[in-house]
């Protein structure tokens, strides 16, 4: 019968949909569900956590903004217990939107410095990254950098044609500029960004490419997260790109955090809190080292490669400024023609 031909897709659909709906999704349900916008080496850290505590964890990786929208849409019915993301501004925003529950944990308060966590206990920083200057030592003498305000110092005409930076869609760029606005005000920051643009800064779409371009001689100075350089140095110790801790005689180097909070609709807040506490203490090294990040817990040492960059002063993190000024940062970047 010819008719079967039209019916066939229908039958296939009818059988496949439940199959797809149940069969593939199934599997054991873990004790804790984590929505994470960060994915590197979570699996290993979570496996260690399960070994230590017997609490099982599964995580769903996605983009910050999308995961937050999903949390908002799911409301009380959300399967998530922990929301983990990679920018203080994002953490602040999630708390502002009422998606994170306040928890009271002396252990976390002891382990995480005050500026790296929410005053109301809705989120806690768990790993730190520094966004600083890297350079080609054959062409740049580090004494050329402005030790007081290294970021603004790059507007000096002597840097014309020598700079590489990351594009404005990157949250890294946005939060750096937002922190500058918080520190110096919008007008001064506008001048800084315009100064970079006036110096013909080359805009790259990822940090690794910035460093590789410097290594290949395409530019001399870039601004990047410290762990990208660490990662490339791990592969090739003779890369020929060095790190300079920015603004050490001034406000300190810009840092940002990855962190997490307990989800408002969580049905297992106690275990969720235990996970955060473990990540900030016993699990700190497992959580930060593989990605060459900096521990937030001052009692935990960074891994050797990162430690070799030397100690540095960091700019205090003002999450509400990073978050609330991020929109202005985008406007400043847009207005300056940063592209």
């Amino acid at each position, binding site marked *: 019968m010819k008719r079967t031909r039209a019916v066939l*897709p229908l039958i296939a659909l009818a059988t496949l949909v439940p199959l797809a709906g149940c069969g593939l999704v199934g599997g054991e349900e873990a004790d804790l569900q984590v929505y994470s916008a960060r994915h590197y080496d979570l699996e290993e850290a979570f496996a260690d956590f399960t070994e230590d505590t017997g609490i099982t964890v599964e995580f769903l*990786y996605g983009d910050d903004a999308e995961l937050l929208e999903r949390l908002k*849409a799911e409301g009380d019915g959300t399967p998530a217990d922990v929301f983990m993301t990679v920018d203080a501004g994002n953490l602040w925003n999630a708390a502002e939107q009422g998606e994170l529950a306040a928890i009271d944990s002396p252990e976390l308060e002891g382990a995480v410095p005050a500026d790296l966590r929410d005053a109301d206990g809705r989120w806690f920083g768990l790993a730190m990254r520094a966004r600083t200057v890297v350079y080609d030592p054959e062409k740049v003498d580090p004494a050329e950098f402005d030790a007081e305000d290294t970021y603004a110092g790059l507007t000096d005409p002597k840097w014309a044609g020598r700079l590489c930076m990351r*594009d404005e*869609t990157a949250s890294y760029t946005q939060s750096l500029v937002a922190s500058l606005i918080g520190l110096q005000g919008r007008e001064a920051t506008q001048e800084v960004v315009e100064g970079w643009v006036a110096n013909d800064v080359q805009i790259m779409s990822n940090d690794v490419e910035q460093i590789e*371009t410097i290594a290949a001689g395409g530019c001399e100075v870039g601004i990047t997260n410290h762990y990208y350089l660490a990662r490339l140095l791990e592969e090739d110790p003779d890369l020929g790109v060095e790190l300079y801790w920015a603004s050490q005689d001034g406000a300190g180097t810009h840092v940002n955090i990855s962190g997490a909070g307990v989800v408002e609709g969580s049905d297992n807040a106690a275990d969720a809190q235990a996970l955060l506490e473990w990540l900030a203490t016993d699990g700190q090294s497992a959580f930060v080292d593989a990605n060459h990040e900096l521990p937030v817990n001052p009692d935990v040492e960074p891994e050797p490669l990162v430690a070799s960059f030397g100690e540095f002063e960091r700019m205090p993190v003002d999450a509400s400024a990073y978050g609330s000024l991020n929109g202005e940062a985008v406007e400043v970047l847009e207005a300056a023609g940063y592209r």
Partner: protein
Amino acid sequence: MLVAAVVAAPVVAVAVYGAAQGPVSLPSSTGSMVVTTLLLLAGTAIGTGVLGTGLAWLVSAYDFPLRRVLSWLLVLPLAMPAYVLGFVFLSTFDYAGPVQGALRSVLGEDLPGLPVRSVGGAVVVLTLTLYPYVYLLARAAFLDLAPSAYDAARSLGASRARAFRTVLLPLARPSLAAGLALVTMEVLTDFATVQYFNVRTVSVGVYLTWKGTYDVGSAVSLALLVLMFAVAVLATERALRGRARYHQRGGRGRGLEQRRLHGWRAATACGAACTVLALAFALPVLRLVTWAASALADDAGRVVDGRFVEHLVNALVVAVVAALACTLVSLVLAHATRLGGGRGVRGAAQVTTLGYAVPGAVVGIGVLTLFVGLDRLAVALGSANGTGILVTGSVLGILVAYVVRFTAPAYQAVDASFVRIPPSVSASALSLGAGPTRLLSRVHLPLARGGVGVALTLVLVDALKELPLVLMLRPFGFTTLSVWVYELASENFWEQAALPALLIVLVAVVPVALTFRGGADRRG
């Protein structure tokens, strides 16, 4: 109508959501984003139009060595996700890449950097990945539609070029317009590729506003701006088609009489097609293979493990089901349009294709909102755990989202087949007592077989490559190949990402090859 309403619902939900935000301030740079978008659209439309039509003409009107193989190989770039090609292109041609490195070593270190990151670069990459849409539809038109008119023109003394220009092109206009409409909508919603090239389109604006200022309302308003672009494109397409309805009479077209090329002409023809293929497909695949090999040599355990198969199966199941569903919806729509033909049905059919022009993440919000609403409704009506299957983050959610988003390419392909079925055929079947269902299964479906095959393939390939929707709607533990590539690529682990990326390409090649190889051989 009902089907159309269901498919369009999330898009409407988004529109309502956007409108409910009240007056929002569009970013100050909206003007320049619009200009950039127009430039990119124009560039890519011209690029794909010329390349797609030109290649289709080349393989239909001439015969040269390798023509038969090339005529279907040229479809393969369809299987290459634009974001992968964009990255490969940049890593090859950027300052630190091998090409500029080699140039510098020959011409001296002072060679200024090439302006790779520009609208021009984005146009090149988008053209190379998207031209197959135009090529496919143009070739089908040249094959099925035009031989008699073309032969008449030739016999009246028109040169080949003249016959092509004055007879074939106008006749193929509806197909070309449909192809270009698809290309344009792809370009409109592209985010990843243009971002590599530092090109600020309105879609980039949507993401910047959303993620930079945490202002979902303004972002959705911007997305509505993208939608307006799409409506304009579709209106243009309709206008281009005009009232023209070219029906095929008699059996299948036997194709154009082909002129055999010899010597340098043959070499040029073959060379041109091969160059396109090499740039759009062979080189990127080679580069991916190199990366994959180096990643495997580095640490095979990190690249391949048990989840590899799981990711592959997940990707396949979702893509296959989505392809079937989209094609089914398109068939019903095209069939209803043919039967009823009313303005309402036709308009509804158009609305369902709009999902293609909404950025994936925005469709995702629409579907989420809708599902959560349904779930709450079910709870309110007394069902204890909601609708059960309608919980967010189910594979069903992804499927619905895919149908919303990918009905457009399926519908374009099916519709293109339907318009070539003379109305008299449908009318005779009906007058002979066939019911609407019988008409669909016995007459329309067999006649539109070609279009159905194309529709299935297009959706299958699109769904395999798709990222934002599956990333946003997937349940715990559900990872597809594209999500996997993204997880690795977003952290710049491109060497590890190469293998799954390669796998997407390989899997996508299978249906492309099956569908279009047959098409090339059919006419012998």
